[in-house]
């Protein structure tokens, strides 16, 4: 198992390397680093200082070295607009995004898993068709449209829920729903197919042959086994949620990292954009690694291997 973890870790580090290289190259080569990395309206001295700091006159590989050095130190640059280090801004906003993602994820699992199970158990009949319809809609409706329509209905027409900002439980309901809707559909689909596979397995057949009541067959034997891939996906999706929440956070003015990204592009604040992208990619690589490692640890088949 140690070998496995070690190999996996190396793999992740390699991915991070490629990512950082990609981001670096895109800025330096296809973009115009002079404009991007420099504040609009900077004086010539400032521009010279920036050239110095990022080594823009140096050969590329040296620039990359500097770039990585900065990243390691946690120096992601400074936001033009907020005049604060990007990392600080990011970490400041991250808890809000985490909260939103957590609530949205809970919603998506609470809705997705039972509907998926129901669809699998009643395969070919009403609930399955209803479930498929729900999944189709969920996967086809863009989250920000859902959000906007919800604002229209619940804030403007009914006046029940606030349309923006944080503050209380009511504030998080709509953004969480808008964000979670797509994932609810995705989880439902996976739960359904996973459940169908498990229901066709030999041990479920034996459970029925034992004369166990249907509820027990499903809830005890099928459920646990079917849930494994779903939870794996959910773990990865949680981090994905944080990153794709850009639009939802923008629609609802939710102060998370997604909104930060939006501000970055609106205010042409490139260090912020770059910082959010780097952090986003890093988080996903990290969570993929974590999921693989956790799997290796809890799967009794691997755990007991010497």
């Amino acid at each position: 198992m140690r070998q496995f973890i070690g190999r996996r870790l190396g793999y992740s580090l390699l991915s991070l390397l490629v990512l950082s290289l990609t981001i670096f190259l895109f800025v330096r080569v296809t973009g115009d680093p002079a404009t991007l990395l420099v504040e609009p309206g900077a004086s010539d001295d400032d521009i010279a200082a920036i050239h110095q700091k990022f080594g823009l006159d140096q050969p590329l590989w040296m620039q990359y070295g500097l770039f990585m050095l900065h990243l390691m130190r946690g120096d992601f640059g400074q936001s033009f607009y907020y005049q604060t280090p990007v990392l600080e801004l990011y970490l400041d906003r991250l808890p809000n995004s985490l909260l939103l993602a957590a609530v949205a994820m809970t919603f998506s699992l609470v809705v997705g898993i039972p509907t998926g199970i129901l669809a699998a158990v009643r395969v070919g009949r009403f609930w399955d068709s209803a479930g498929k319809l729900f999944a189709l809609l969920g996967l086809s409706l863009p989250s920000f449209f859902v959000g906007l329509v919800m604002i229209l209905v619940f804030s403007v027409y009914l006046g029940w829920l606030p349309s923006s900002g944080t503050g209380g439980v009511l504030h998080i309901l709509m953004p969480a729903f808008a964000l979670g809707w797509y994932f609810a559909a995705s989880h439902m689909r996976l739960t359904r197919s996973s459940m169908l596979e498990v229901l066709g397995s030999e041990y479920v057949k034996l459970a029925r042959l034992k004369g166990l009541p249907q509820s027990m067959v499903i809830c005890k034997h099928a459920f646990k086994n079917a849930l494994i891939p779903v939870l794996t996906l959910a773990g990865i999706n949680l981090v994905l949620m944080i990153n794709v929440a850009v639009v939802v956070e923008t629609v609802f003015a939710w102060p998370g990292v997604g909104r930060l990204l939006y501000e970055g592009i609106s205010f042409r604040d490139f260090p912020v954009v770059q910082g959010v992208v780097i952090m986003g990619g890093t988080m996903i690589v990290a969570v993929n690694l974590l999921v693989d490692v956790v799997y290796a640890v809890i799967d009794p088949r691997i755990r007991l291997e010497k």
Partner: protein
Amino acid sequence: MSITSDTLILPARVPSRSGSSRLGDLPLIPIIILGTIAFMAIFANVLAPHNPEIGSLTARFRPPVWQTGGSANHLLGTDQLGRDVLSRLIFGARVSMVVGFTAVIFAGVVGTVLGIIAGYIGGWADQIIMRITDAWLALPALTFAIFLAAIVGPSMWNIVIILGAVYWTRYARVVRGEVLSLKERDFVRLAVVAGCSKWTIMRRHILPNVANSAIVLATLMLGVVIVTEASLSFLGVGVPPPQPAWGLMLSDGKQGLMVGYWWLTVFPGVCIMLMVLSANLLGDWLRVKLDPQLRQL
């Protein structure tokens, strides 16, 4: 109800999915919808009643014709600059269609080619391509697209290239997997033994066989690409104004939302939804039709 029901009755016909009348028949609804949108896109000049980019400031925020204050002149109302919503929707179809299809094809071509090379040639090429693919797949598409848009600046063709750059990795991974298994098949081995060059084999034997998967993936990706494009437009880094795009209309519509100007939000959103829905249904149907083994996709 149990899974087994071995009573003495023959089963009724299993209900089929919405959007397709029967397995094996063409899914009419998605094709009609996509066809209509394509039609709108091509003949926008003729179909649209007004110029989508110029509005009359005296006719701002007019509601659709069936509400009080609406007029037959502007069937679906006007926006904050007095521009006709219907015309903007029709012209917006152009952006969605062009960007959507071009990006999907571009990503598809690049991804398939690289996937074939990685899968068939293996070795260094495979390692490099796969490392890039894995790393880029770790970056969420939207985030990556925003990043690239921030660097190169928005324009319609830039967006197409950006979307292509973001999504080719999905093709590469799937195609490579297929190629790896195809490599072991006898007809490929025969070609090798017969002395065909690597490139010939890739072109004449491998490519046609992965084409199916690539096409199915392309249809499934169409919906995703359109949503991403709309998201980019919504955030202001998509196709730049004044060219009408549905995502941009949604962004503009935000202004009027709080005072109840619902038509600025609902219509463009419904258009996006219909297009994505149709693409998804078509993709699902194609997937089952072309290769049942691809059901895992």
